[in-house]
Structure formats: C-alpha cells, structure tokens
C-alpha cells in the first residue's frame, strides 16, 4: 500500500488523561513512516510534551487538540494546534521546556499563526 502523502487527522479532548492515546497513535503512525524504535520514541516524546503543554499551559481554541500527521517519503510532518497563545513567545519555564524537548527530539519545529490561532509544525525524518 502506498503510504506517500498519507494524511491522518486526530481531534482529541485537551485532557492529560488522553496522553497515552496520543502515544499509541503516534507509535502506529511512526511505524507507517518506517521509523525504528529510537526514532519512534523521539517523536512520541515530542508529541506527548506538546499535547501536555496544550492541556496544561495554553488557552485552546475550543476543548480539543487537533493533530494532523502527514507521512511524506520517510518523514513525518505534524501540525499540532490550535491555541490562542504562542509557544515561541511563552517564556515561562514550561514554555521553554516544551521548546527544549521539541528541539532535542525532532529534526525541526516552528510555529505558524493564522487569525490569532497558533499551531506548531514538527518534522522528523527516518534515518534508515
């Protein structure tokens, strides 16, 4: 089955209790992108931190976190949103911590904003 350009959309309540579901889904999607366990754990850690950050430290646009996963060749691109606050401008310890984790566990990340809503774009490529 061709996996190029797979788009997977998840909308999940912004509750930390849902973090395990995020990990389960991310593991399955990372598998589809051909990641090994080290890489899969990295993206899992990044996604869990972003999700928990949204649940605890952000005003969300609604009560759900939206995650859009796109598998392209051997890479995974995730758009996580939408929040009413910017992660890039959050200089609290937890904001800096979230950026630190994203920096360490992903290939790249940046924030986009549209009409006062912020989303984080995360990218990770398989080394295999």
């Amino acid at each position, binding site marked *: 089955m061709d996996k190029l350009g797979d788009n997977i959309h998840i909308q999940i309540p912004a509750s930390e209790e849902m973090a395990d579901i995020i990990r389960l889904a991310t593991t399955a999607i990372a598998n589809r992108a051909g990641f090994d366990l080290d890489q899969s754990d990295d993206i899992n850690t990044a996604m869990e931190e972003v999700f928990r950050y949204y649940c*605890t430290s952000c005003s969300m646009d609604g009560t759900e976190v939206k995650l859009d996963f796109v598998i392209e060749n051997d890479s995974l691109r995730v758009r996580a949103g939408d929040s009413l606050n910017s992660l890039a401008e959050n200089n609290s*310890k*937890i904001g800096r911590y979230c950026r630190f*984790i994203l920096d360490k566990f992903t290939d790249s990340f940046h924030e986009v904003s549209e009409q006062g809503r912020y989303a984080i774009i995360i990218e990770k490529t398989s080394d295999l």
Partner: protein
Amino acid sequence: MASNGGKKLSRAETDILFKRYREDRNPETKSQIVDAYMDLVRSLARRFANRGEPLDDLVQVASMGLLKAIDRFDPDRNIQFTTYAVPTIVGELRRYFRDRAATIRVPRGLRERSYILNTAVQNHLQEHGRTPTIAEISAITGINEEDVIEGLESNEASTLASLDSRTDDGELSLLDVLGGEDKTLGLLDERLSLAGAMSGLDEREQRLLYLRFIEGLSQSEIAEKLDISQMHVSRLLRQTLQSLRNELTTSTRESFSS
C-alpha cells in the same frame, strides 16, 4: 570444563573457539560455544525453577544470557568464560522475573509478549547496531504489527522502571550505575536554561538526562552504556521527563501565584 555434544572440551579448546569466533563471528562457531555451555545454562535455570515458571522457559531465558555473554566476552582478558558468563546469565533470569513482577497487573499474554518484544529489540540492536522498526519486530517474532504496537505501549504505560532494579549482569543497580559524584547539574540546568529546575530531580535522573541531552546519546546507546534494555531506558526517560515536567509545572504555578 565445558562439554560439546557430550564431549568434554578443555579450557584450551574453548579458548580456541572463542578466538575464532571473535575473528570470524561465524554463527556455526557460536553454535559450538553454545553447545559447550548448555549444561551451565540448564544448571543456572534450575536454580530459579521453584518460582512457578516452567523450566523450559527458564532455559530459554538463560540461553539468551549465554548468547549475550558470548558476544561480549573478550578472550584476551585472561578470565575464564564461566566467570564472565554466570553473572550475565543470572542477570537475564533475574530480569525476566523482575519484568514479570513489575507488570503484575498486566494480563499474562501481554507480559509474555512484552518479554518477547524486549528480547527481539535487544537481539536486533546487537546484530544491526540500531533498534528495529515495528515491521522488523513483527517479522522476527511473528507477532502482528498491531499487537507489537499495543505491546510496546502497554509496556510503557504499565511498567514503571525502578532505579533500584538490577543491570543485566545482576551485580549493580541503576542507582549504582547512574549515580556517583554528580557534576552535571549545573551544566544541564544551563543548557536547559531552566535555572533551578533540575534541583527537584534526584542525581540519577539528572545523570540520565545528561547522557541523553548533553552527551547526545540515543536510547539504544544509553542502553548499551548502562547494560540495560532499550525499552528500560525508554521507560526511565519517560519517567524522568515526567518528574521534570511536574517540577516545572509546580514552579510555574508558584511564580504565577506569588
């Protein structure tokens, strides 16, 4: 003295086998060494036979320990192989029981799957120098991909790794391995730009973060360095990050309320 197919081998003969194996890594040579030490494996497995597990399963677990010992043994170190192998095999058996005890609330099928997955990951890591993909684990174990994913994540969710648990050689706890005089606190805090955040973690958690973030080691590299499984490192790291996050969340709330 080791035996091979009923024939006893002298120390000189086993030395030759080990030197040959170190040079050619030929599976046939390895198989001869395994045969030579199966009596030792069975003997060690029997020591654990009164704990409610079938002896055949324990022999299998002990055999995994023997394979690890063969791969890691350096014949130039002038110690007998058995001196090196016994703690490794006993460590493997202890880890088997520890993992089963730690996952006591997980259904038996999942526990067994978790052990099989862990073993498959470690073997793949040793043979290929990297962790496997889920598809590869599935191919090795015959467990379908969905069940592999479920097994890995249930292992993560239900088993909190203990820093008191033993390393594979059974001699040291992670407290011993990760501990020691800690000069990493300041450096890590500085890199994290999270002044003071690390002080809420114990020094072993700080050390684990140091290996991951400052030395930049992958989970499998940390696993090799600490002689524990990649899945164990994964659990420890998740646990440690959770401690750090809790520490930060608390201090962020305190700074808002003051």
